[in-house]
């Protein structure tokens, strides 16, 4: 076999899930950098409840991929100490709502250690959190907690929506010298795309939004689990004569004002979509920034389609809570179109 053929075969793109891409990112990070250490509940022998760390303890040993005692504050607190000593810990919180016991460590230490020590003690650690609903999870298994993290200066907050981004952004998060909250939309874990683990797509570093679908009529601004919903809404909107642009923020902190502003200035209309509660949510910040930067280009107020301002509902009722294609289209319809549509 010629080398070219061998290379072509090795880099062949095959259907892969987001879970597989995340697993590969962790594996490559462990292989490339001996200071990378994974910590979490059930991440070793079991490979994590979502199997994101499958096979890693076996390949790299228990000390690189460690089953910890069941204590989230302990996991994050010890990770802080490990990072202070020069390691690069990657911790897994088993579910969104089970990260809350670690909140004290996060707010009081992780987010401000660099600042307190005038840069002497940066904390290069990654906190992986499976988040969001839509998987029929019972109480405490479907929270979207990004607003808490966003409102804590010092943390990066990143969330992938595609297989390629899952790999690229997780590698970037682990390589970052700042603490990164890496929010994994759990209902996209089994979403698939053609992807090559041996030649992963180039993904720009943390902090860059991307236009997933170009359009002229209005911009749907979204991230994480709501990206596929917005893409579906954009497809459906074609029938009504709307050509919607879908912008995937990818990173909520740092925030890419530039890409967002350029998009909304072009389209003149915007709807922000996310599944966490609307009040005081990320959408409020986004709408404010758009208004501040694009006021003279806007044809209508920036609207939001979000989860209701309620505790996450039980599985049998969650479909009424989550932003749906219909709700997004209803919002688009309210963007003050002239008679006769777009």
């Amino acid at each position, binding site marked *: 076999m010629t080398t070219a053929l061998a290379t072509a075969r090795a880099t062949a793109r095959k259907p892969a899930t987001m879970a597989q891409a995340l697993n590969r990112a962790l594996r490559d990070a462990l292989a490339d950098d001996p200071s990378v250490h994974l910590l979490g509940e*059930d991440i070793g022998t079991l490979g994590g409840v979502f199997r994101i760390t499958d096979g890693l303890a076996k390949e790299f040993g228990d000390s690189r991929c460690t089953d910890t005692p069941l204590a989230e504050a302990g996991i994050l607190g010890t990770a802080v100490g490990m990072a202070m000593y020069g390691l690069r810990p990657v911790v897994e919180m088993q579910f969104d709502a089970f990260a809350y016991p670690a909140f004290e460590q996060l707010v009081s230490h992780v987010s401000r250690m660099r600042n307190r020590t005038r840069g002497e003690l940066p904390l290069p650690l990654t906190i992986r959190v499976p988040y969001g609903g839509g998987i029929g999870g019972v*109480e405490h298994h479907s929270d979207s907690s990004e607003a808490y993290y966003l409102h804590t200066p010092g943390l990066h907050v990143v969330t992938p929506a595609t297989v390629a981004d899952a790999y690229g952004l997780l590698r970037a998060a682990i390589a970052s010298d700042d603490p990164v909250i890496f929010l994994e939309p759990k209902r996209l874990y089994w979403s698939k795309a053609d992807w090559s683990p041996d030649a992963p797509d180039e993904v720009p570093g943390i902090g860059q939004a991307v236009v997933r679908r170009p359009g002229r009529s209005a911009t749907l601004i979204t991230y994480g689990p709501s990206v596929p919903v917005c893409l579906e809404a954009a497809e459906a909107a074609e029938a009504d004569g709307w050509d919607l642009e879908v912008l995937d923020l990818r990173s909520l902190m740092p925030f890419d004002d530039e890409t967002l502003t350029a998009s909304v200035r072009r389209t003149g209309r915007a709807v922000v979509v996310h599944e966490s509660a609307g009040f005081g949510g990320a959408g409020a910040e986004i709408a404010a920034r758009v208004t501040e930067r694009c006021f003279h280009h806007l044809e209508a107020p920036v609207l939001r389609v979000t989860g*209701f301002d309620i505790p996450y509902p039980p599985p049998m009722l969650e479909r*009424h809570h989550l932003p749906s294609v219909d709700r997004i289209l209803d919002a688009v319809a309210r963007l003050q179109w002239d008679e006769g549509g777009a």
Partner: protein
Amino acid sequence: MTVLDQPVWHPRTEPAPLLPDAEPYRVLGTPQARTLEPGLLTELYGRLVRGRRYNRQATALTKQGRLAVYPSSTGQEACQIAAALALRPQDWIFPSYRDTLAVVARGVDPVQVLTLLRGDWHSGYDSRACHVAPLSTPLATQLPHAVGLAHAARLQGDDVVALAMVGDGGTSEGDFHEALNFAAVWRAPVVFFVQNNGFAISVPLAKQTAAPSFAHKAVGYGMPGRLVDGNDAAAVHEVLTEAVRQAREGGGPTLVEAVTYRIEAHTNADDAGRYRDDAEVEAWRDRDPIALLEQELRARGLFDESLVSEVEDDAERMAADLRDRMNEDPALDPMDLFAHVYAEPTPQLREQAEMLRAELDAEAGS
């Protein structure tokens, strides 16, 4: 007074040792078992059989899509039933997510106990009426609540004991430490009940604690720690009843560790083959809590046809009723999303409710 007159540590003066059990306390199979009331033995037997049947039925309901998930307590029935029986009606129980049997044995409607796992509402029973806190999914977070409730009852002059349940994994959480310390400092009428079933999902005991036992932890807080065979229903019943009595009489909290084993996977969705051998599970079947009771009943000549058929009929009736009622679709009202978020809905919630109402009307109309 100088600084040296202030005690900086408290010498223990009570004669009672804080850690009386050198190994898990047993009753069944020992001479002491012969002193047990026949009525207690047959009651425990009937309730354990019924409990196991409940676990089996609930697991079957997951296969039929009637439950989102079910964490079975098969193998732990002695702990579950003894916990409920040790309490008086006015006492409270603070269950962890796996403790459905204890809640049912307490008298709560078996269907209401399962609403959480069916997914139509979070907590399906009236906690105040049955003195059972909601099943707690965030592990160990309910333990301080038990201390607070017991403390409040005592402040009000009420005779109430709180039983707080937690797994071996849950003991690693900070809330476990804080709850035990508060309870001991306040001498609150609380019994902490650790079911050590060997695993926290896939994580074995050795990765959870380096303590010789969980009972040992009690000593550091200044409360007694009891170690009991969690598959010996008579022993667990005796130890918990004694701890409840002591709490009631002002003797303060006790930590009880029951050594048992999780026979099933973590839940129906878990694959235990990834982290443990079947041989280990089989070895524990020799200490099956129901079989241990049966042996004692046989030795006493109490295990006869009529007992067996009565117990089995009762368990089947319960299972059939559970199956029938769980096979009915629960009544769902999406507008419930907005009820009970606050005492009074906020203007924003009222607006959001109107929007959903309009959507539902449109859906119904189209």
